[in-house]
């Protein structure tokens, strides 16, 4: 009987981590449904970007208030997780505060965890107030109704509860240490929870032990739950922000990639020795589809972008189209891409890894043409994203599909393109008149 808790702990740990691993593999499979793209260049620049943007949070502080609060929660999350290591060892081997031998360092660590926990509670509370009392505009766009709104609040509740459990556990432990209870070594410094422990002054040792054990278990089970919640939540960014900033765009923002498949065709057209009536070579592959109408037409970095989005809405709040009441919201582009990708993934799960047409696609079923044509390609969304997501590249790929596969540009744009084709300018002026300005007074 003595080893029942250890056994139970290991079972919960294995289930928790196992389930998480399964979802990570699913995530990887879905992302790799995207087209291949070569991002093996400039490794050192990429490492530097990841360090600066993800680890260093440099783009978060562009907006100082949420930026600083976010840094507190982020540091709290990372540093307090050192404590989880101790909890796991204690859980498996039935020890208690196994690192207590670190002495002064241990006191310092526990004290800093506690202070961070308190700061996290304060930050999370302010975040909740911003979302629910102040009701910041960017959290109340049409795409934020239902699950996205609830998801945002749930994350805050979970973080709050985890921190409260952690502090209550320490408070009970501290009280037990004061009372000299067996098994509870004198270790750690409790600058925050000593105040909570005052509430437990009248409790018996057995009740205190019960409280300490219950909060200890709830805390670690809560952490494992949260780990598994990530895949279903916008909160996945805590992991994916790192690869996403690593694989982010390195070229100037204004540089849009030149489609190689088009280059080949253009070269053929310009080649005077090419035979326009030649039959395609025997081994010629299907002509490539231009642009994107579904998630599998996008490249895998764009799909990684979609999973990395934490729906903060900084992109949307800087978007000139959205600011002036147009339907386009760059955040929705990313959310739609993720939702559609998840849908494709689920169809594959049901059909033994095989995708079966479901009569739906990213274009029209998720992202409307009106949204795509509202974009000014100004890059404000790309600049605003704290984790290097590029919604503009998806918009442009979808425009390419509309124009080159469907000839479905707005008629004004067709006129403009017709003019360029005919007379080399977007307006109907004769190319021969191009220098007339130099003779006008």
């Amino acid at each position, binding site marked *: 009987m003595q080893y029942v808790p250890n056994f139970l702990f290991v079972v919960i740990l294995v289930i928790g981590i196992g389930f998480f691993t399964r979802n990570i593999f699913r995530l990887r499979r879905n992302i790799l449904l995207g087209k291949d793209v070569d991002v093996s260049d400039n490794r050192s620049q990429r490492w530097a970007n990841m360090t600066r943007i993800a680890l260093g949070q440099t783009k978060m502080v562009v907006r100082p208030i949420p930026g600083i609060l976010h840094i507190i929660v982020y540091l709290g999350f990372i540093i307090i997780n050192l404590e989880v290591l101790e909890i796991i060892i204690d859980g498996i081997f039935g020890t208690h505060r196994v690192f207590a031998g670190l002495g002064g360092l241990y006191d310092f660590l526990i004290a800093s965890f506690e202070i961070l926990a308190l700061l996290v509670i304060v930050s999370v509370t302010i975040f909740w107030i911003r979302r629910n009392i102040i009701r910041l505009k960017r959290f109340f766009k049409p795409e934020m109704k239902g699950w996205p709104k609830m998801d945002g609040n749930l994350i805050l509740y979970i973080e709050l509860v985890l921190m409260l459990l952690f502090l209550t556990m320490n408070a009970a432990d501290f009280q037990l240490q004061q009372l000299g209870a067996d098994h509870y070594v004198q270790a750690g410094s409790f600058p925050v929870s000593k105040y909570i422990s005052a509430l437990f002054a009248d409790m018996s040792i057995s009740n205190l032990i019960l409280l300490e054990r219950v909060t200890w278990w709830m805390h670690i089970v809560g952490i494992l739950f949260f780990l598994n919640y990530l895949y279903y939540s916008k909160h996945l960014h805590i992991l994916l922000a790192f690869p996403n900033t690593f694989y982010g765009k390195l070229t100037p923002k204004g540089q849009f990639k030149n489609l190689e498949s088009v280059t080949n065709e253009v070269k053929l057209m310009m080649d005077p020795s090419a035979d326009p009536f030649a039959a395609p070579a025997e081994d010629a592959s299907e002509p490539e589809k231009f642009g994107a109408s579904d998630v599998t037409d996008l490249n895998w970095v764009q799909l990684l972008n979609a999973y990395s989005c934490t729906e903060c809405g900084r992109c949307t709040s800087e978007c000139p189209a959205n600011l002036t009441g147009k339907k386009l919201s760059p955040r929705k582009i990313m959310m739609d891409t993720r939702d559609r990708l998840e849908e494709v993934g689920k169809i594959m799960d049901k059909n033994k890894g095989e995708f079966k047409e479901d009569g739906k696609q990213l274009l029209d079923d998720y992202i409307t043409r009106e949204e795509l044509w509202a974009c000014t*390609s100004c890059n404000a969304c790309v600049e605003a994203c704290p984790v290097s997501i590029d919604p503009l590249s998806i918009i442009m790929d979808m425009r390419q599909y509309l124009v080159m596969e469907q000839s479905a540009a707005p008629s004004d744009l067709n006129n403009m393109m017709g003019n360029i084709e005919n007379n080399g300018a977007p307006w109907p002026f004769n190319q021969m008149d191009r220098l007339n300005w130099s003779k006008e007074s």
Partner: protein
Amino acid sequence: MASELNVPTMAEMFASGQKPEVLFWVGCAGSFDDRAKKITKAFVKILNQANVSFAVLGTEESCTGDPAKRAGNEFLFQMQAVTNIEVMNAYEVKKVVTACPHCFNTLKNEYPGLGGNYEVVHHTQFLKQLLEEGRITMEGGSYKGKRITYHDPCYLGRANNVYEAPRDLIRKLDAELVEMKSCKQRGLCCGAGGAQMFKEPEKGDKDINVERTEQALETKPEIIAAGCPFCNTMMTDGVKSKEKEASIAVLDIAELIANAQDL
């Protein structure tokens, strides 16, 4: 009007065995749009005064393909690009200056992949360089002490990180440079980019140029400076919609410099 503009073409120069220091890429707006033509002429006046050896392609120039690419027509873009590159490479062009950030961005970033490798600068960068080399001098003239706010064109600013050259030039005019609440990296688009210039805006509750003009008006400017012919049109329309055209001028940086020197 001081004197005739001297605008040699690449063909003329080539025929006489000369090679200009720089190709001035005029762009479609600069060639055909009545408002933008004034910017083109102002820039040429400065080039003439500074004795810069330059040439234009004239009737051999064609749209860079930027609006086609941003509209999604990669095919048309690449056709335009390849044609233009053939012309420029035949003239052995090394350096290009343009007053249009859209041409600037496309020539600088998207042409190299298709065989067009040039040093491409925006006219504000070029002017700043002329100033630093002492080839032009600048005095504030009528702009001394005036409140000027500068609108960052997306394809110059965010797209290519050119924020300081135009601002340095405004400061050199001894003008008071005032910033809008969204500026530099966070500058708000005028609404013309991404081929929007050539279509009606999608349904919304406001036009983007009006939103941007309101931000500009908050700075109480006497002049709104721009560095892009499309931004210029959008801001001019915005100022008109607020019925402020009598008190606020929308001018390109090149026009500010040319006017200040009575060119």
